[in-house]
């Protein structure tokens, strides 16, 4: 699988973009999207909400199950992807692009985020 080089990854299968003006984009990986199957509903944190690294901040429903969404970093949510709320299948079709979930002004990041190569090894794909 193709985990983009420029992103970093959490062990909960979220990805995090490099910060631009202190703001990073968060989504779930293709590996996670494939494991979930067709995503039919996403509940995202609200703009302005504070999220904490490794804590749940939303949920993803697929045909077979519901999964918690974890934030890979701590900070304030600045934007959520309304397109993915309207059309959750974007998580499956474009997990690293149009299926992004929210943007966060990073206050603190944990020390254990993975590189693309490390995540590929961790997830086995």
């Amino acid at each position, binding site marked *: 699988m193709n985990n983009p080089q420029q992103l970093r990854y959490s062990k909960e299968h979220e990805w995090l973009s490099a910060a631009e003006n202190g703001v990073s984009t968060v989504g779930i990986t293709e590996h996670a999207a494939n494991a979930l*199957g067709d995503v039919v*509903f996403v509940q995202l944190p609200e703009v302005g909400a504070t999220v904490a690294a490794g804590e749940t901040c939303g949920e993803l429903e697929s*045909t077979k199950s519901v999964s918690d969404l974890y934030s890979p970093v701590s900070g304030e949510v600045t934007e959520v992807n309304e397109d993915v709320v309207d059309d959750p299948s974007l998580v499956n079709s474009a997990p690293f692009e149009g299926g992004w979930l929210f943007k966060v002004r990073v206050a603190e990041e944990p020390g254990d985020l993975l590189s693309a190569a490390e995540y590929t090894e961790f997830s086995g794909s």
Partner: protein
Amino acid sequence: MSSTEPTELRHTALDALHRSLGATMTDFAGWDMPLRYGSERDEHLAVRTKAGLFDLSHMGEITVTGAQAAALLNFALVGNIASVGVGRARYTMICRADGGILDDLIVYRLAETEYMVVANASNAQVVLDALTERAAGFDAEVRDDRDAYALIAVQGPESPGILKSLTDADLDGLKYYAGLPGTVAGVPALIARTGYTGEDGFELFVKPEHAVELWQALTKAGEGAGLAPCGLSCRDTLRLEAGMPLYGHELSTALTPFDAGLGRVVKFEKEGDFVGREALTEAAAEAEQNPPRILVGLIAEGRRVPRAGYAVVAGGEVIGEVTSGAPSPTLGKPIAMAYVDAAHAAPGTEGVGVDIRGSHEPYEVVALPFYKRRK
């Protein structure tokens, strides 16, 4: 539940083929089965609008033969199996003496003195053991044929056309819940017009060594018709939309057929005693006078999906429990089957919701099924 599950997963004759198709596999009752090949939603819609191809080789086949085969099955099962004509099939159940459901079954009468009982994979051993025990004193043999068959299903409106191109068997004369021996793509098969999807379709019982050849022939024949390989994930949403029960969800040993709203499968009028008769007679009366919880359909007003085990609520009280739930590809909304108290079971009952992880989401009570195909 079961402590008899093998630690090593079993593989069907089509295992390598599923992997070459990129299937996501899952442990289902000890079998490594395809969950989906791509999008389960697309697979679901293929079955509703065109056709889908399923490997169901995990299902448990048990053959019952002998001069008293019919008498044995009439004693062991709740249905009137002796009245099933040769070449026909019957949906039925096997119950305990206390009326609890051990499994739901399809029984095919292959010949005057030969039946094939098809059990759920998770219950096949239980059914085999019960039939074997109940056969004592009957001139009949119960044979474990689980390894003798692979089972491939073709389901969906295009399935008759696809199958016709591969067989000389009289498919037009083959009614729903009928089965006849024939040849499909040069392979000997029991061709049954049965399924678990709510669509027209066929189930083909063949020798495992013929499974790959048959699957490939069906795939080729279905190319122009939109036939898609389909996994167990869409099989579950298809049967849920069709209001069909699944053992372990809507059916269990804690419930009688009457509790499950399927009392019609119990044939008290048949000759002779049968296992569970006494308890089921009481259960039938109870269901009429003082109905226990009733199995209903629920349709979400929102988008959060109810799952098995979630509480059904009304006025802050728990009034039932979800047994199966999923996003319905056909309705475009989450749906569920649930047992609810009789007072809240009427279609259109106001104020019913499902407790979805602490939040009471509004749901509409409807009669089952959610989906009925146009004939």
